[in-house]
């Protein structure tokens, strides 16, 4: 299927978006996954490198668990924003992640963060994760990327 895609209107049409997901804030995870999905939708490759607070969101049940980056107000702000998002028909982070994986998006988990924070592989959603790496993996991914962001 990938071969067929490469020939006509498929993947690898040139370009790659590599995003460091450092923040674990809900709104910033939205940004990362929306941009990743957008890149894939437009025929680019995409890799998301989850590190530090971002890596917490790859824990089982953790994807939607992040606070709001501003006006979280002990959860009240997040609750209000989620309510408004639902009204505006914004999809869940789970759905964005499913789509991201379906379109061939790559997820890299930072090994150093796992060590520092004492996170074991068993605690992570391993079916999303393509690779466990360090800075070398990010540079290797990003050196030929046309878009790279730090979120």
């Amino acid at each position, binding site marked *: 299927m990938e071969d067929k895609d490469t020939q006509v*209107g498929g993947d690898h049409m040139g370009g790659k978006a590599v995003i460091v997901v450092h923040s674990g804030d809900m709104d910033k995870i939205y940004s990362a996954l929306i941009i990743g999905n957008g890149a*894939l939708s*437009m*025929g680019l490759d995409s890799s998301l490198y989850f590190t530090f607070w971002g890596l917490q969101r790859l824990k089982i049940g953790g994807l939607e668990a992040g606070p709001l980056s501003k006006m979280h107000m002990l959860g009240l702000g997040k609750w209000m924003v989620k309510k408004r998002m639902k009204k505006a*028909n914004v999809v869940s982070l789970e759905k964005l992640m499913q789509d991201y994986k379906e379109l061939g998006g790559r997820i890299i988990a930072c090994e150093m963060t796992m060590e520092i924070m004492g996170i074991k592989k068993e605690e992570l959603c391993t079916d999303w994760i393509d690779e466990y790496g360090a800075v070398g993996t990010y540079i290797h991914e990003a050196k030929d990327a046309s878009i790279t962001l730090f979120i």
Partner: protein
Amino acid sequence: MEWGDNITKIEIDVRGQTCPVPLVECRKALRKASPGDEVVVIGTHQASKKEIPMACESLGLDVLAVEDKGNEWKIRIRR
């Protein structure tokens, strides 16, 4: 696929959906379609009306038509 095989028309309805769903669903449909198939996307999200043709250009695919009806749009793409 041989010439003369049936060209399939795949319709996706993303009316009421917002960013990035129209773009993503369009891409998913294009991936599943076979060369020659026609993918028709119907939606209401205004930015996607511009961005789906941009994605098609980047994917090297032809947009056959962009039609408007009230606040709805319909984009026809040849895979």
